[in-house]
């Protein structure tokens, strides 16, 4: 695909991989070049990133309770392993 052929349709198809950091360096650079020129795709990218950030904030705040951790450690100590 030439640089000129990298339009919004092509950019949006790769946007998710770009936001997840999974695009190869040359493709990520091509995407950044498109985002600089395209307000529409930039807005969609920021919208998706804001959504992703909010969900990740939710995930980070929740941990396995200490009491459950201890209960599991005790149970594991009592069980013969299947190995």
């Amino acid at each position, binding site marked *: 695909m030439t640089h000129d052929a990298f339009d919004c349709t092509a950019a*949006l198809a790769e946007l*998710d991989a770009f936001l*997840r950091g*999974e695009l190869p360096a040359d493709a990520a650079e091509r995407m950044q070049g498109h985002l600089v020129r395209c307000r*529409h795709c930039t*807005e*969609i990218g*920021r*919208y*998706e*990133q*804001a*959504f*992703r*950030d*909010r*969900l*990740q904030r*939710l*995930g980070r*705040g*929740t*941990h*396995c*309770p200490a009491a*459950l*951790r201890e*209960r*599991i*450690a005790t*149970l*594991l100590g009592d*069980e013969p*392993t*299947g*190995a």
Partner: protein
Amino acid sequence: MAPSPTPSFESEALPHLDTLYRVALRLTSNAAAAEDLVQDTMLRALRAWGSFRPGSNARAWLVTILRNQFISGWRSAKRGAQPVDVEAVPELPDASDPDPEGRFFAELVDDEVLAALDALPDEFREVVVLSDLEGLPYAEVAEALGIPLGTVKSRVFRGRRILQGQLRRYAEESGLIRPTEPTP
């Protein structure tokens, strides 16, 4: 070359307890049920440890066991989510969004986000939780759920749209953004 020794169950499984608990919490929508589900999962995993292939993905293996436990024993006890017409859900955001950069997401309180997540049908909630809350790569989600990669992506994209639509309704109701004009 000699086969690598089987790692201990504790060293492979215990680091994933936070992930397992969060996934269980979102599958069951109930803290006590989530604790029981994680405990059952760990016991079952320990007994099956001999079938774990050293070097393969322990997190995906554990999530598979947790999900199987949930489906066999827990799902029936949970309220059924409203069915969604999957084909009617677009994969991209609405271009007429009054907050096109989604600033309102950061303003929503946890309870609103959790309520929207819990209202998602199971097939969408599990992929969104694994992919977007836990940050698992799509390939790992596919492995954990035993479904094709393309199905994972399709469900994640549609699950996000459903969730975003619900969160936008919360944002409208609480005055964070003005309501979207109905499309003529």
